[in-house]
């Protein structure tokens, strides 16, 4: 089911992105609340293109948007991912 833009804000999206990253990467000892939104997913967390693709596909489902494959390299942390989603929702 599509998410209503009125019901979400950047903070909530950031928490949701953190939840998805934690779940899909099976991260331990971290919660959405304690996930640093500036943590570099590639340099610091070590995720690779396949992990990022998985996260993007799950988030596409969640928000009923398209995250273009060419944009993956720009999605370096969960703040940037959340901002990307927010923009896509607004542009819908």
């Amino acid at each position, binding site marked *: 089911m599509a998410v209503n833009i009125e019901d979400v804000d950047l903070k909530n999206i950031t928490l949701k992105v953190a939840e998805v990253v934690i779940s899909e990467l099976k991260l331990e000892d971290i919660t959405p609340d304690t996930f640093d939104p500036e943590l570099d997913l590639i340099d610091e967390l070590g995720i690779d293109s396949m992990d990022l693709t998985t996260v993007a596909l799950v988030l596409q489902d969640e928000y009923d948007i398209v995250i273009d494959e060419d944009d*993956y390299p720009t999605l370096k942390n969960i703040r940037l991912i959340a901002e990307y989603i927010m923009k896509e929702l607004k542009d819908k």
Partner: protein
Amino acid sequence: MHSTDTNILPKSANDLINRKWKFSELISDSIVRERWEKVRKYFFLRETTYDMSNRCNLKCDGCYYYEGEKQFAKENRDTEAWRALMVNEKNRGITYVVLAGAEPSLSPELLQVCYDIIPLGSIATNGVKHIDRSVDYMIHISVWGNDETSYRTRKAKDLLKKQIKNYKGDPRAVFVYTFTRENIDEVYEVIDIIKDADCKITFNMFSSPVGYNGSLRHDTDSLKRTRSVMLDLLDKYPDVVLFSPYSAVAHTHASSLHNLYSCPYPRMNPSKDIGLGRSFRQYRTDLTWDRSAACCVPDTDCDDCRHYAAGSAVVTARMYRHAIDPETFKSWLDYVDTYLAIWVRGYDKGKNLCEDMYPPPGFEL
């Protein structure tokens, strides 16, 4: 039974393709979900390739190694230099090594050094010299036809007999049959020998080095014939052949892998942000590397590249493009399941989820 009518999909398949699918729907089927969970455990693999020597005990027509600049690199045989390289590689996140050119079995001490530090990998060998079991990498043994053809093109007498003698029943061994324009039907006699030796086979496509226009280069007719033979062998030897219908599609398509999927290796991909463009290197035997030449089979003509090693990374990396409908996604899963069985020790290939051929995203069959 595989569909050989190359442009017609079953009606139900067309119905499935003509709607927008969520990823969660694609993996909602329990069998698909199980396969997805099985292959995703290996997303941590990050490869780099290494030329182990500039020597070879064969001289083959169309050899990739003896093309371009890399063949002139001075050989570094210092085990401590290799040990230091492997430690550095591990520290920068490399989890998988591909040991190749010219003939890695001629540098056994270096193979052992690599294995001791990075225990996942594979060795591309001609199989003439046995590699000790203490190096527990996958061993890819190149076969270019029957022994008569091998003698003609590789100047090697009784080559398959020697290869079988060295690797009969060896769980590390996968025989890699390279289809050229000239040896397509010879695979039938080769596969019987490999089956009797309790070994596995997978398929490679001759991919021309830059500038090569000789008799081995595939044409439209040979691509079609090769696809048909691959599918026939999949049907007849399901326990011997490591392949899938989608593997056949991807590697015998009229368009090259690069043109179908946009090759992510540094040689064709300037981005250093993520994935192969960020981490992959192709080391020459002097332990240097050159980003502009870095791909799994350097000096291959990208417009003719259908190489099995290239596809393993190129097709796998394009998961997003395959997550569009159930059959396309299952085809991709079959491809990845196949590649893992070929490249990772202890990984068992499952039954292919797609019996029919489906086209690469955005292309016809």
